[in-house]
C-alpha cells in the first residue's frame, strides 16, 4: 500500500473546515487513524467501502451501544483491523462544560482513535474507532466519570430534545427535563435490547420541531398550546415602523387566515382557526408569543425508508400536559411498546406495525379514543370493519 493519499489530501483544501485535517491531527497520535486515512484513499480509488459487515462486540452487561467494525483487508491496514464505534449518550440539549468534554477527550485519546463524531445523527457522542480489547476499559473509565452508552440494536435509542427552555422563548414544555427523565427511567430498555427493532423518542418544544422529531422518532412529543397566542401591539408597531411588511410576510402566509391586520393592529381575528403553525411567531418574535396553556402533541411512527418507504409521525394525542413525573406520558409509551413488542415482527418498526394491523386496531389496543385531529381526511374507501 502506497503511503501517498492524494485524493484524500485534496480535501484538506477549501474554506469549509476539513475532516481530513482532523484525521491528520489524530493520526499524529494514533496509528489507527494513519491507516484510516489510507482506507479512505482506497475507498476513493475503488469507489467502494473497505469495511466488512458488522460483528457482535460490546461491553459487559450491555446489549447495545457499540457498533462492531472490521476492515476488509486487515493485512494491509492492521491498525484498523478492528475499528468499532462506541455511542456515548449526551446530556439533554447537548450542553457541556469543558471539564466534561476534556474528560471524554482524554479517555478517548487513551483508549481509542482520538476521532469522534460530535455528534452522531441520533445525537450520541460517537467515539469512532476502537479495538475489541479497549472497548471495556473505555466504557469503564467513561462510566466512572459519569458517562454512559447510548443505544444501538433493537433497543430504545438515545432520546433527544431541542434546546427548549435552555435558550428558546417558545418552549411549550421542559423538553430537556422530560428527555433526561425518560432517558434515566428507561436505562434498561436503552442498554439491553428488548424489542423487535429499534425505537426512538424525541421532544421538540414547539411546532418548529428543531430536533426533527416528526421525521425520525417512533414517539414524538411536540410542544403546543390550547389558548390563544399572545400579541404585543407595541412591538407590532415597532416592526411596522421599521418597514417590515407584516401583511405580505406574515398575514398573507398564515395557513388559515386566522390573523389579520386591523387598522395597524395585528389581531388574531379567528383564534379558533389558528393551527399553531408558528409562522407569525417565527417572523415577529418580539411581538407574538405562544399562549400560556401549553403542553405537547404526541405523534407516533416516524422512520427512515427501510422497508416500506419513509414515514412521518402522525397525531395520536392532540394535547397532553407535560409535567413531572410524566406518569401519563410514560404509561402511554409503555402501552405502545407492549403492543408493538407483542405483535411486531423482527425488524418491524411501530409505523409498519400500525400499517399492517391498522390504526383502528392500534387505537383499540392502547385504549385511545379516535378523534378527527388524527387524520387529514377520513377514509375514501368503503372497507371498514364492525364488531
Amino acid at each position, binding site marked *: 500500500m502506497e503511503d501517498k493519499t492524494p485524493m484524500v489530501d485534496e480535501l484538506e483544501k477549501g474554506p469549509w473546515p476539513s475532516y481530513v485535517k482532523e*484525521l491528520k491531527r489524530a493520526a499524529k497520535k494514533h496509528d489507527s487513524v494513519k491507516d484510516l486515512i489510507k482506507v479512505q484513499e482506497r*475507498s476513493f480509488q475503488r469507489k467502494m467501502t473497505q469495511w466488512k459487515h458488522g460483528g457482535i462486540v460490546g461491553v459487559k452487561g450491555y446489549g447495545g451501544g457499540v457498533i462492531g467494525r472490521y476492515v476488509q483487508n486487515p493485512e494491509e491496514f492492521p491498525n484498523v483491523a478492528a475499528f468499532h464505534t462506541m455511542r456515548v449518550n449526551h446530556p439533554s440539549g447537548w450542553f457541556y462544560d469543558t471539564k466534561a468534554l476534556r474528560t471524554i477527550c482524554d479517555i478517548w485519546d487513551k483508549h481509542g482513535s482520538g476521532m469522534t463524531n460530535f455528534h452522531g445523527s441520533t445525537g450520541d457522542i460517537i467515539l469512532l474507532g476502537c479495538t475489541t480489547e479497549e472497548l471495556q476499559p473505555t466504557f469503564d473509565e467513561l462510566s466512572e466519570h459519569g458517562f454512559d452508552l447510548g443505544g444501538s440494536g433493537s433497543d430504545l435509542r438515545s432520546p433527544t430534545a431541542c434546546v427548549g427552555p435552555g435558550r428558546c422563548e417558545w418552549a411549550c414544555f421542559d423538553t430537556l427535563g422530560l428527555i433526561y427523565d425518560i*432517558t434515566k427511567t428507561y436505562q434498561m430498555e436503552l442498554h439491553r435490547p428488548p424489542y423487535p427493532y429499534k425505537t426512538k423518542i424525541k421532544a421538540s418544544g414547539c411546532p418548529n420541531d428543531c430536533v426533527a422529531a416528526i421525521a*425520525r422518532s417512533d414517539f414524538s412529543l411536540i410542544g403546543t398550546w390550547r389558548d390563544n397566542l399572545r400579541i404585543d401591539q407595541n412591538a407590532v408597531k415597532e416592526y411596522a415602523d421599521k418597514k417590515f411588511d407584516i401583511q405580505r410576510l406574515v398575514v398573507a402566509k398564515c395557513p388559515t387566515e386566522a390573523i389579520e391586520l386591523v387598522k395597524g393592529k395585528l389581531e388574531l381575528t379567528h383564534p379558533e382557526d389558528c393551527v399553531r403553525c408558528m409562522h407569525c411567531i*417565527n417572523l415577529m418574535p418580539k411581538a407574538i408569543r405562544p399562549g400560556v396553556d401549553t403542553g405537547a402533541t404526541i405523534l407516533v411512527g416516524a422512520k*427512515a425508508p*427501510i422497508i416500506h418507504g*419513509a414515514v412521518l409521525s402522525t397525531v395520536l394525542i392532540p394535547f397532553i400536559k407535560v409535567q413531572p413525573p410524566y406518569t401519563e406520558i410514560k404509561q402511554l409509551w409503555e402501552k405502545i411498546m407492549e403492543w408493538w413488542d407483542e405483535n411486531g415482527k423482527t425488524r418491524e418498526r411501530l409505523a409498519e406495525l400500525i400499517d399492517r394491523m391498522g390504526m383502528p386496531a392500534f387505537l383499540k389496543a392502547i385504549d385511545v379514543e379516535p378523534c378527527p385531529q388524527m387524520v387529514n381526511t377520513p377514509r375514501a374507501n368503503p372497507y371498514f370493519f364492525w364488531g
Partner: protein
Amino acid sequence: MCPTDVGPPDFKTMLPDVIKKNYGKWKYHEILKPGVMKHVAESGDELYTVRAGSPKLVSTDFIRDLCNVADKYCDGHLRFTSRYNPEFLTPKKENVEPIIKELNKLGLPVGGTGSGPGACLSNVIHTQGWIHCHGAASDASGIVKALMDELYDYFVGKKTLPAKTRLSLACCLNMCGAIHASDVAVVGMHTRIPNIDHEKMRAMCEIPTVAASCPTKAIRRHPDPNIKSVVVDETKCMYCGNCFTVCPAMPLANAEGDGVAIFVGGKVSNARKPPMFSRVVVPHLPNNPPRWPEVVNTVKHIFEVYADNARMGERMGEWIQRVGWERFFKLTDLPFPVQLIDDFELARDTFRSTTQFKWT
C-alpha cells in the same frame, strides 16, 4: 466492578449560570448577524450565542480547541446543535467579536442561522460513508466537504437563501439521519444487484431468513441444490440492501453502479405548510471522489435556481408546491427520467389525477 446504567450526565449540571437563572423564561430573540443570536429573558438578562460550522468528524484536539474558546469567553460552557454546530453562549455582548475571531482563527466559519428573509444554510446532517460503514454506496464526509466548500458563502451569509434550507446526506438508503424530509438530500444508492458470496452464505447466513428479508421477493434458493445459497432475480431487485443487512454474503457495493440520488423539497417544521417528504429529482450521479463534481454542481445549481425564483420566506418545497414540479424541472433544466415516477407501495397517490398542470 465499575458502575453501569449511570445514564448520561444531568444536563442541569452543564448549564451556564445565565441559563440556570432564566431557564424556561426567555422572552424573545434577535439574529444580530449570521451566526450570532441574542436571546433576552423575562428578567432582562441577555444571552449571546455564536454558532460555528463543524465537520462533525473531528479529533479530540478539535474539541479541546472549542473548550479553549469556551473557557476563555463562556465560563467553560458550550453546546452543540441538532445539526452538529458548536454554539458558544455568553451573557456578555463584548465577548461576541472575540469569540468569532478565535473561531475564525481555528478555521471555523460562523453562520448557519436564520430563516425567512436572509437565511443562511446550516450544517449538513450526514452519516458515516466510507469512513466507517459497510453498506455505504457513497462516501459521507468527503462529499460533504466538497459540497460545503462550494456552498460556503451560504453558510457565512455572504449569499442568502429565500428561507431555511436544510441540506442532508446519507450514504445509503437506510437514510441514517432521517434525511427524507430535507430541502435537499443526497443519498448514496446502489444500482446493481447483490454480488453473492456463496461461500460466505453457507457459513454465515440462513437461507430462509435471507429470502424473507427481500421486500420484492427477488431472492430464491440457488437452482443447483449442491450450492447452498441463493440467486437474485435481476428484474425484481431494487437494490435496497435489506438482504445485506441480514446477511454479510450479499454486498451491493459496485464501483460502476454506486453513486447518489438527489432528493429535494422536504421540510420538517410545521411552519406554514405541514412537513413534507423530499422527492427524487436526479436518480443517479456517479461517485467521483474526491470532489464529486457532478453532485456538487447539481446541488449548487438547484440552490441557485431556488434562490433566483422562490419568493421571500418560501422553503424549497413550498416554492415547488406553488409553481408545480413541471416548472421545477423546466427551471432547473433537469431531465425527467422514468425512475422519478413512483412504482412503490403508495405510488398511486403521487399520480396527477387532474387536468391542472402547466405546459411549463
